[in-house]
């Protein structure tokens, strides 16, 4: 509860701060402080200090799982603010409003991670999506940004319509929106409504996480949006929808039998294949990262495919590892003058620290041992093996991980083994040290993943 209420209040505070001051440094510091407070508030709730006692029974349920994810989301957002707050300001003239919208998205993230009712799922997803449409189009004079915003908006509200139809059909079958009510047996005459409703809901969630047959909007939107906001969209938002997805699977899908495994395995395999293979052919690092986010979503889909304890732990690790690495790479990418692979040529000579940290992040995304990315991928695959059956999917995923090494290493190769003058905007010492800290965290958690997972069982 702390997370939802505090982030909504802080969003409003950020909006009013633009009336009181036009000093960008003040606004930036305020946003960082408020985000740290938000993280502190959520950690306090994890240890049992709830600031606001609101009766949310039947609407929201705050489990240790959802709260841990909130902490991760706020922590990565804090790092994101520390790294990229200056770039958020330089998108347009309304710096404070961008921070306000980001806080509102965090409120939506907290709702999606702890909903107990399909109404709250719908509201949470919309609270995430509507500010994102604005942020995508925030570069108002840029045609690509306009295109991305319109495309994202039309696709997003289309999938919302599908989701609502799904929820309604499920309601028609069960007579309740509560997640707990979905497990009850259906009147056999109405089972078809339930199955088709669940299928529509699955399709709309696949839209939101950009899983394979419904991924076509992702590269254009991620490419067109201002790069700072792409970093946020590709990490926190995607991971949050996955957490919402797995809450749905907790109850709704086991109740309707094993048929979902087939649908999900097809979606997973297609997502992995399309994401990885298309990423190879990209010339722009930003677009490559957009496809890589589709490929990583394929791995996260494993958590839904093999639903057990291991995969739930794995999803937490995955969201942390993936978000840390992607935020770090994007923070460097934003400062680059040229977004193509050639733009990175010789970065190791001019900016050795940035090149080294970017390398660690890329290794983590590729899943090389001793990084967090390795363990998160390991948990996902181990969960699928534990469930038994369909081992072909596991082998296919390993094959795709091998393919992904190629395009991640292209960046490393450009930085270290090619000559050139990588041009980038000046960076200060704080930026470097934050990146070094994040890289250290990626390696530390890659050796001791239990440092995070122990918080699941308080």
């Amino acid at each position, binding site marked *: 509860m702390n997370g939802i209420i505090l982030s909504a209040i802080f969003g409003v505070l950020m909006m009013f701060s633009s009336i009181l001051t036009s000093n960008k440094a003040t606004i930036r510091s305020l946003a960082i402080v408020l985000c740290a407070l938000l993280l502190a508030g959520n950690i306090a709730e994890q240890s049992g200090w709830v600031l606001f006692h609101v009766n949310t029974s039947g609407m929201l349920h705050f489990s240790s799982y959802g709260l841990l994810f909130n902490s991760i989301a706020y922590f990565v957002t804090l790092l994101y603010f520390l790294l990229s707050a200056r770039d958020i300001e330089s998108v347009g003239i309304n710096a404070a409003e961008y921070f306000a919208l980001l806080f509102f998205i965090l409120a939506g993230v907290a709702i999606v991670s702890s909903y107990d009712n399909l109404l709250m799922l719908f509201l949470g997803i919309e609270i995430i999506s509507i500010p994102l449409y604005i942020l995508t189009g925030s570069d108002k004079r840029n045609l690509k940004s*306009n*295109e991305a915003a*319109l495309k994202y*908006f039309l696709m997003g509200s*289309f999938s919302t*319509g599908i989701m*609502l139809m799904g929820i309604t059909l499920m309601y*028609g079958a069960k007579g309740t*929106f509560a997640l707990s009510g979905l497990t009850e047996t259906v009147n056999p005459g109405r089972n078809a409504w339930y199955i088709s409703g669940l299928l529509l809901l699955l399709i709309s969630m696949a839209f939101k996480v950009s899983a394979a047959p419904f991924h076509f909007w992702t590269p254009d939107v991620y490419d067109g949006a201002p790069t700072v906001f792409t970093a946020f969209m590709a990490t926190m938002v995607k991971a949050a929808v996955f957490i919402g997805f797995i809450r749905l699977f907790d109850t709704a899908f086991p109740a309707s039998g094993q048929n979902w495994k087939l649908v999900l395995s097809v979606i997973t395999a297609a997502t992995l294949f399309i994401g990885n293979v298309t990423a190879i052919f990209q010339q722009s690092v930003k677009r490559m990262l957009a496809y890589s986010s589709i490929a990583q979503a394929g791995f996260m889909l494993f958590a839904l495919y093999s639903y057990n304890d291991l995969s739930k732990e794995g999803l937490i690790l995955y969201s942390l590892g993936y978000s840390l690495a992607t935020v770090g790479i994007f923070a460097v990418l934003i400062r680059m003058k040229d977004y193509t692979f050639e733009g990175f040529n010789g970065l190791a000579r001019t900016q050795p620290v940035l090149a080294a940290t970017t390398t660690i992040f890329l290794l983590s995304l590729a899943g090389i041992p001793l990084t967090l990315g390795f363990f998160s991928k390991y948990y996902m695959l181990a969960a699928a093996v534990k469930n038994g059956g369909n081992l072909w999917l596991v082998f296919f995923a390993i094959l795709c991980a091998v393919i992904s090494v190629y395009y991640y290493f292209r960046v490393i190769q450009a930085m270290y083994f090619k000559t050139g003058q990588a041009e980038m905007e000046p960076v200060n010492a704080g930026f470097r040290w934050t990146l070094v800290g994040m890289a250290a965290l990626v390696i530390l958690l890659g050796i001791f993943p239990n440092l995070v997972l122990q918080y699941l069982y308080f």
Partner: protein
Amino acid sequence: MPINLYIFLALALFSIGVIGVLTRRNAIIIFMCIELMLNSVNLLLVAFSKMHLADMLAKVPGAVNNGADAQLFVFFIMVVAAAEVTVGLAIIVMMYRNVHSVDVNFLNRLKN
């Protein structure tokens, strides 16, 4: 009236909306089709609400509140749809200012 008629009507409206989104090229018309989808959902929710109320009244005579949550949901959909219209029309206006067209075919020209 049997519930099936309501379902057919709602699904027909929903399908018109989906087909419109997939085939039309004018951003405003696509937007109207999305609104049509949302409103068909509203209609279906209200119909289901009455259906569950009738079901429950047949079993428990005093349960007059059953199905109220679906009608509540309708209001939430209306509010969210209004918020979406605000943002969506602003985005369409922003695009119109830059390219003097609301044709989504224009968007494909920008692809790389």
